[in-house]
């Protein structure tokens, strides 16, 4: 079993994770900064306390040692002075007894006596004596000072050897003793400071512990306090999220009168206003939808009767006199036109109301194109245009609404046949990793830049006087554009006067996903292949417009370069 910490990468992620936590959590930041500052304060205070205590301890111990030593020395000296010394007494005994007196007077067991050098060596003076603990401890500077100092006391901090190889801190105090008949001696008394040191260590340890505990406590208290402060903000953030997600009724409870309460009040006021506006808009949209559907029903029923009547009359037209026969024909075609117009209008108004629903099904675009081509083949033949389908790709099922896409393709091919001037109409289908596309290319009359800019407008016609053979409503491209946009797809056009037009429909392979690029090129690869002499600089007059971009308000030349407008 592998644990996360066994994975070396965990270490590398740690710094960035910590930075992340730092940035995200107000509490962590506050507590960390508080801990840092209080830690510094406590550290400074603690160090100061430790130092002053240690100084104080040392000083008092030193004073005690000096006093002690002074007392002992004075007593020894006065004893010496008072004693009756004859030359015959052994100096050694005298020294011993002096040292014993000293030892009795002092609490220390570390005593040393050295004869001050440079004195009369002829007298048999008692030899130097030193307790084992003072061996090698007394420095030469101290001895120098004592030798030249007369009756003054001098001291020195030393390291006294302790039992197990370590050393204890100590003080050695030195004075001069005068042994009658034997001269001056340096008397050194050593004092062990180990117990002071132990006290000091104990105090330091306690301070340290107390300092840590204090820091932790302060950290904990800060955490709790910040939590209290952050809690209302967190509540506000969560409530905002719920509001944004669609729950319009959510509010922040208002307690008290502090700044958080006023935050809550403002938030609730905003939420109220949002809720009422959204509800208003929803109601309006519903009303409009109902209106559309009611109008639909109301208009269609009498129109059905009219249509049936028109058809019955049309079927019997041969039995009428010629004028009536012609009337019957006109009636028939205009009723059909009216019907188509009504359907298109209702469709457009549905888009405007936002009440359109896609019925996606897995659909093979090539098959769909093939079906529409078959449907319109007779029409193409009537116009003398060859209609053909090239499909290098796109043979798989893509989620789309087949009714709508069929309508789009029918519209594009119909337009191409109508404006094709009898030249071939080529339908191409292809795909890439993100999209599937269909282009309808005609080589007919084409459009100028001006016309291309308006081609997707509602009820706009390139040439109003042009004889309409297919009988469009003027809304075909507008509806096609809406259908393409519904699929998150593109509908774009390239055209050049005299060189024909190419309309390109691009749909995402995965519904709703953004298309990176279209599988088919626009302008088409044969865009320049026209009779340049006849039309003059056809390529520079080519205009490309992105219907989808216009609808969404982007600049038209965001995706294609506008190669100049015709003068």
């Amino acid at each position, binding site marked *: 079993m592998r644990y996360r910490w066994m994975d070396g990468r965990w270490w590398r992620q740690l710094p960035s994770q910590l930075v992340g936590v730092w940035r995200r959590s107000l509490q962590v930041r506050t507590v960390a900064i508080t801990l840092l500052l209080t830690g510094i304060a406590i550290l400074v205070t603690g160090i100061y306390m430790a130092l002053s205590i240690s100084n104080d301890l040392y000083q008092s111990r030193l004073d005690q040692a000096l006093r002690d030593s002074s007392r002992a020395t004075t007593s020894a000296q006065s004893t010496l002075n008072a004693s009756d010394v004859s030359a015959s007494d052994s100096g050694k005994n005298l020294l011993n007894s002096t040292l014993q007196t000293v030892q009795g007077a002092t609490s220390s067991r570390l005593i040393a006596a050295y004869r001050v050098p440079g004195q009369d060596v002829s007298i048999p003076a008692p030899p130097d004596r030193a307790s084992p603990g003072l061996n090698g401890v007394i420095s030469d500077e101290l001895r120098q000072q004592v030798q030249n100092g007369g009756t003054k006391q001098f001291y020195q901090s030393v390291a006294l050897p302790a039992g197990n190889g370590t050393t204890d801190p100590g003080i050695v105090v030195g004075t001069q003793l005068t042994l009658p008949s034997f001269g001056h001696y340096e008397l050194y008394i050593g004092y062990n400071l180990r117990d002071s040191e132990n006290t000091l260590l104990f105090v330091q340890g306690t301070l340290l512990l107390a300092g840590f505990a204090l820091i932790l406590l302060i950290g904990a208290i800060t955490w709790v306090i910040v939590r209290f402060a952050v809690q209302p903000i967190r509540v506000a953030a969560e409530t905002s999220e719920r509001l944004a997600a669609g729950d319009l009724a959510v509010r922040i409870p208002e307690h008290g009168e502090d700044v958080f309460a006023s935050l809550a009040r403002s938030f609730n006021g905003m939420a109220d206003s949002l809720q009422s506006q959204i509800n208003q808009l929803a109601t309006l949209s519903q009303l409009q939808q109902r209106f559309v*559907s009611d109008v*639909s*029903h109301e208009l*269609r*029923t*009498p*129109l*059905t*009767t*009219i*249509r*049936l*009547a028109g*058809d*019955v009359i049309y079927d019997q037209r041969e039995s009428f006199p010629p004028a009536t026969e012609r009337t019957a024909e006109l009636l028939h075609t205009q009723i059909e036109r009216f*019907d188509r117009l009504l359907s298109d209008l209702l469709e457009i108004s549905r888009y405007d109301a936002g009440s359109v*629903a896609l*019925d996606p*099904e*897995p659909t093979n675009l090539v098959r769909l194109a093939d*079906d529409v081509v078959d*449907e319109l083949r007779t029409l193409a033949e009537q116009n003398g245009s060859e209609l053909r389908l090239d499909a290098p790709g796109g043979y798989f*099922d893509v989620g789309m609404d*087949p*009714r709508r896409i*069929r309508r789009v393709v029918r519209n594009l091919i119909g337009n191409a046949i109508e404006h094709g001037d009898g030249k071939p109409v080529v339908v191409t289908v292809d795909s890439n990793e993100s999209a599937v596309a269909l282009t309808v290319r005609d080589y007919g009359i084409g459009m100028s830049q001006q016309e291309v800019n308006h081609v997707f407008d509602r009820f706009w016609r390139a040439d109003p006087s042009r004889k309409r053979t297919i009988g469009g409503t003027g809304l075909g491209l507008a509806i096609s554009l809406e259908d393409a946009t519904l699929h998150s797809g593109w509908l774009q056009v390239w055209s050049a006067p005299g060189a024909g037009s190419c309309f390109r429909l691009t749909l995402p392979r995965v519904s709703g996903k953004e298309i990176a690029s279209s599988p088919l090129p626009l302008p088409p690869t044969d865009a320049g292949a026209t009779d340049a002499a006849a039309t003059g600089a056809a390529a520079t007059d080519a205009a490309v417009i992105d219907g989808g971009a216009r609808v969404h308000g982007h600049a038209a030349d965001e995706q294609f370069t506008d190669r100049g407008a015709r003068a």
Partner: protein
Amino acid sequence: MNSRILVVDDDTALAEMIGIVLRTEGFDPVFCEDGALAVDIFRSSKPDLVLLDLMLPGLDGIEVCSRIRAESGTPVIMLTAKSDTADVVKGLESGADDYMVKPFNPKELVARIKTRLRPASTVPAAEQLRIGDLVVDVAGHEVKRGDARINLTPLEFDLLLALASKPQQVFTREMLLEQVWGYHYKADTRLVNVHVQRLRAKVEQDPDNPKIVMTVRGVGYRAGAVT
């Protein structure tokens, strides 16, 4: 004998117009304006087919359709001004065999009526067909699971029969539209979807796990293996 057709629509002008068209084609129309009276008139006039408008006074068209369907398998064609999927599906699910969106081409209306009224077109060689664990009696228009009879409308029976008569064949929705509904052009495949659902609800033991009418993803439907 002329086929009798019940026309249920509250718009009198339209009803009359439809009547004229039907008479021209040799049908015998009967009229009803009110949804509440529709079911009674259905019972008393015993039509061969019903043209039913959805928006009716009295009783709603959907309700009328369910009631008629509960009593008989007479073909019902919905007439509606609404073409939204939700409305169409609701109508089909209540029992209609087909629907026409107003305004419609009268020739188309007549063609569909004739399709619904035609006798069983392709008479398969066998008299009894098996599909899944069902037995289809072709001549008797009966479907049985073991000894239990399953009630199907003529359309549902036609649909099942089409699948059962070619058990290896995968039928696309367009093929079914052509064969069962008699369409000869690209029409709305929602019809097929809804009717397959209805058929499954009647014949499948577990409609979520179909064994009689199998879906072939991306293509269409197929008869389940005989068990």
